[in-house]
């Protein structure tokens, strides 16, 4: 239409000009130029409208001059008609100019939003949920109380979702995420995507049922190529479309982010394990000693049993008790090995009920020899009513092991008669608190500041990871770890682990 508009406008202009100039009708034919200005709205810009309006006014004036050049009769009437026409054209031009201006603003705004819609990094689907909404409303009016009841009565309802929703539009990013070339291909994929995770689909229905403003979830889907993606999506139900005729679903592909997080997590686990094994390496001699005790007892009981048996009158009761002792000794040895194996094994953290008092006692047994050869006097002050905490036993033991070894090492330069190690557990309403106090030289302000930073160490052979890992373990358990120290009066490390709640 707009292609022919300039031509049509030119023809109309010529026709009006000829009629106005050559005929002598007592009407204001020039008023018809208004049609030309209106027609120009289709093809001319703002300036063009003004120019065309001015041209029409010029032609009106020209016709007036031509038709009255030699004849001045009825001049007054003609002049009035001419002025009316010019005024009409001017007003129309002005309105046209205004209209054109606001059309430009509107166009710019629409362009901006279109650009955002198409080019944003978030995939956006524009969907029509009217049928779905209708189906839900029907269930409500049939007296169904909630979505759980629907799930019980009609488990297949969730499979009807794909048929009751329509894809109106999707942006480039959405097409890219699903690896399809056009909207039709995407629409064909919808049923598989929607029904991929039934559990989430029901929650999504529950959100519509409850009239929530939006529903957000993360889910695993397959794109057109069959590649598995982790996507975070948000379904917005705009308040001004209660019929759900325009629902916007924004989708973010978080696959790479989750992969990085997983890598980071496993790297952290690896490091924790390596540090633990390194700590165990430091304790080899102590551990050998721990194992030696039950072995010595076992051998001695065995030898004694043989002697009871070889007597002229074998004492079978003693033989029996000797063998029972041997079994008990062997069990103690295997307990130690089990404990060690748990510490050296590479396993993902397991949440369990942990009694920190037990862990403290077990860990002290591991470092008992270090305590003895360093002539450290050990004192326990364990809370009898210490609540259980939820956590990974091995990791918590690692924290305690590190703190104990640090404490013992901190006192190596301290005079022997004042090497005191105090191990305390305190029951709190919401947490179990463990304090490990040494009588070493204390921390310098500089050390205290960097204590928990990775790779900070005051030991010549230290890796500087021990306390950093302790902190990450404690933090992962929802607790906190701090060090208090007075220079010359020893150091106290304390950490808290929240008590497991009914819900957790």
């Amino acid at each position, binding site marked *: 239409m707009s292609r022919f508009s300039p031509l049509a406008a030119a023809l109309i202009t010529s026709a009006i000009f000829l009629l106005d100039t050559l005929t002598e009708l007592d009407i204001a034919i020039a008023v018809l130029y208004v049609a030309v200005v209106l027609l120009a709205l289709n093809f001319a810009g703002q300036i063009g409208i003004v120019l065309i309006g001015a041209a029409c006014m010029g032609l009106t004036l020209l016709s007036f001059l031509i038709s009255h050049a030699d004849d001045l009769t009825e001049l007054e009437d003609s002049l009035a008609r001419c002025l009316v026409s010019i005024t009409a054209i001017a007003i129309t031009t002005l309105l046209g100019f205004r209209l054109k201006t606001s059309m430009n603003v509107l166009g710019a705004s629409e362009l901006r939003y279109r650009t955002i819609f198409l080019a944003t990094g978030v995939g956006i689907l524009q969907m029509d949920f009217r049928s779905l909404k209708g189906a839900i409303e029907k269930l409500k009016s049939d007296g169904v109380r909630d979505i759980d009841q629907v799930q019980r009565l009609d488990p297949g309802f969730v499979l009807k979702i794909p048929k009751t929703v329509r894809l109106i539009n999707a942006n480039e990013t959405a097409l890219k995420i699903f690896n399809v070339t056009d909207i039709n291909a995407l629409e064909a994929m919808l049923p598989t995507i929607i029904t991929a995770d039934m559990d989430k689909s029901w929650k999504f229905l529950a959100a519509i049922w409850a009239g929530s403003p939006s529903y957000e979830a993360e889910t695993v889907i397959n794109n057109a190529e069959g590649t598995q993606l982790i996507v975070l999506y948000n379904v917005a139900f705009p308040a001004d479309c209660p019929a759900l005729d325009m629902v916007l679903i924004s989708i973010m592909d978080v696959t790479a982010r989750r992969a990085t997080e997983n890598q980071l997590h496993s790297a952290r686990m690896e490091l924790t394990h390596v540090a633990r094994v390194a700590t165990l390496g430091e304790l080899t001699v102590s551990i050998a000693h721990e194992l*030696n*005790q039950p072995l*010595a*007892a076992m051998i001695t009981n065995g030898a004694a049993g043989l002697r009871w048996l070889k007597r002229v009158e074998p004492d079978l009761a*003693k033989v029996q008790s000797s063998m029972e002792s041997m079994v008990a000794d062997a069990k103690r040895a295997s307990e130690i090995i089990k404990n060690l194996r748990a510490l050296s094994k590479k396993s993902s953290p397991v949440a369990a009920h942990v009694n920190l008092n037990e862990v403290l006692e077990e860990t002290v047994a591991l470092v008992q020899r270090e305590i003895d050869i360093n002539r450290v*006097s050990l004192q326990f002050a364990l809370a009898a009513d210490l609540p259980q905490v939820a956590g990974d036993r091995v990791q918590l033991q690692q924290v305690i092991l590190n703190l104990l070894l640090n404490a013992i090492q901190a006192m190596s330069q301290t005079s022997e008669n004042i090497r005191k190690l105090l191990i305390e557990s305190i029951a709190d309403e919401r947490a179990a608190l463990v304090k490990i106090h040494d009588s070493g030289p204390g921390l310098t302000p500089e050390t205290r500041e960097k204590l928990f930073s990775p790779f900070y160490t005051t030991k010549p052979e230290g890796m500087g990871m021990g306390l950093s890992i302790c902190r990450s373990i404690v933090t992962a358990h929802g607790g906190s770890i701090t060090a208090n120290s007075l220079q010359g009066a020893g150091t106290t490390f304390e950490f808290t682990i929240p008590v497991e709640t009914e819900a957790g």
Partner: protein
Amino acid sequence: MAKPTSPLVFVVDDDVHLREALRNLFESVGMRVELFGSTSELLVRLAKGTSESCLVLDIRLPGVSGLDFQNQLAKIGNNIPIIFMTGHGDVPMSVRAMKAGAIDFLTKPFRDQDMLDAVSNALALDRSRRAVDGEVSALMTRYESLTMRERQVLALVTTGLMNKQIAGELGVSEITVKIHRGRLMEKMGVRTLAELVKEYETILPRLKT
């Protein structure tokens, strides 16, 4: 089964299971055993006096170390023979223990025969020490039955002086010396001068203290 007079073995180790295992072993060869978790408990027991006995001591003990306890016993004059046990072969430590008079130094886990041999040696040593001690005490009792004058004569006789010289020394008659000498020989239960000299040398260290 072990008679009250049979030899007694004291065991000190902080590990109750090993203590009990050692009790089992020693009882299987008819020895009496008393177990202690710490050296302080043992000290209380030793103060009550013991018959023939020895001590099996872990070198790694809470509080005081085995080596320190060995010194402590020596200081209070208790020379009960000691056999040390250790969790790990530590040469400097064993040298120190042996120099201070330990009977043996056994590394856990030890052979039962090694432990029993060490204990037998320790008990034999204790027995002979006690025998010597018993002999000395008997002589001391005899010595203490002597009069002041007889003791003076004894001291001079054993230095090799003649009766006449002793008489001159003490300012008495030779006959008086002879009488004293005959009586003290009788009291000390000897017939020759050589026997008397030997007995006197045995008790001499005690007389000096």
